[in-house]
């Protein structure tokens, strides 16, 4: 299981609690209404463990690490 992984947000599930942006500020910021903006770039290997932990932290299970190719309708 190699290849680039990207963070993805399920915006229907996301409630804008903002834990993810606190846990992983390197890759996640918040928009003006408090919902996460994730970088579309691949998660760098040094942050992979942190990213996995952040995915586990989300109380709404709205954050994912995704191995699929990034589509335009993210």
């Amino acid at each position: 299981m190699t290849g680039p992984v990207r963070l993805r947000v399920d915006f229907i599930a996301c409630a804008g609690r903002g834990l993810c942006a606190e846990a992983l500020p390197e890759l996640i910021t918040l928009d003006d209404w408090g919902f996460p903006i994730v970088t579309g770039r691949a998660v760098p290997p040094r942050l992979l463990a942190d990213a996995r932990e952040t995915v586990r932290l989300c109380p709404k299970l709205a954050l994912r690490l995704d191995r699929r190719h990034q589509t335009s309708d993210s």
Partner: protein
Amino acid sequence: MILGAAELPRLLPAGYAAGPVGLAGHLARYGPLPCPRSGRLDGRALIAEAGRAGLTGRGGAGFPTARKLAAVAAGRAPVLVANGTEGEPASAKDKVLMARSPQLVLDGAVLAAEAIGACRAVVVVHPHVRGILDGAAAERARARLDRVPVDVRTAAGGFVAGQASAVVRWIERGVPAPTATPPRLSERGPRRPSAVVQNVETLAHLALIARYGASWFRSVGTPAEPGSMLVTVLGAVRAPGVLEIAAGTPLGRVLDLAGGASAPLQALLLGGYFGDWVDAAQALGRPFSAAGLADLGAGPGAGLIAALPAGACGLRETARVVRYLAGESAGQCGPCRFGLPAIASEVERLVEGRGADPGLLSRWLGQVDGRGGCAHPSGAVRLVRSALRTFGAEVSSHAAGRCRGAAVVLPVPPGGTR
């Protein structure tokens, strides 16, 4: 029995016959459905023919129909959904098609269902035409025409209710809101989809491709975008309404077919409320096709063409539509729920010349674009961006308190439909 290859209209009845075409008239015009023998081989042949025809989805996204059908044809018996929701207030082409040629839509739904091995076809229709589709389905049942059961349902109201995943959730759960999972399953494995959604006009074309073949279909239109298409023309034209045109017909010609412009035109809205404003002088010579409009940042979308007269204000029209779209959010995704009202307010400030902040508007457009479970937020952003492109020069005159006019061109339902 075959329609002349270059003869239009294909889908709509010729002339102005009152009411829907019944089963006998339908079969007299088009001939019988080709060998409705079920089975995978026939289905594969039909899907291959649709692929050779180059048929694309007529609901707005333009996805190749054969690829969508082939992706599910190998699976367990799914449900074929014919989507006649048409929640867009300015568009009438699906309603007119279903009202005039309901049997052609049902032909296509049944053929597509058989082609993918579906257990049934569910036809989801706008409430205005429910009775007509019920009558058409009953007539087929009496004639024992179909091996696949056809189930007619009334669509939910609201702009987002027509999004494919919302239609499926409406059928399965009675909730007309888009879902994130499974999104667009027809393009994705390995889990098999429970339903494949096709626009009703797409299915009507499929019914004719099944009868007459791919080369017949391709005898009008352009090589890259073959066939005919239904368009809704409204605004400053003498005979607004639904027309069937060859794909790629120049926009000026399409307006002529709608009686010609009734006033000097400044701009056109193309595609739908998720579409694009373009300058009229630049667009009128262009083919109404994806290729012909790409460098204007526009496309045919769901076939809407709205002509904005010189006496109207494009920014004001946009503000009204964006406020409507903000109210039509399913409210499931934060950026859409909070961002669209914020954007609508900013566009209203811009129109009224009261301290709009273009930097803030641009920031919010970026923060809403692509950040939802369906295409709704991105569509609204697209509309606003095209308005800023096309009417940008008028922003300063609005800031100085001048506006071209308050003529209302684009329909917006009062008070929302949700």
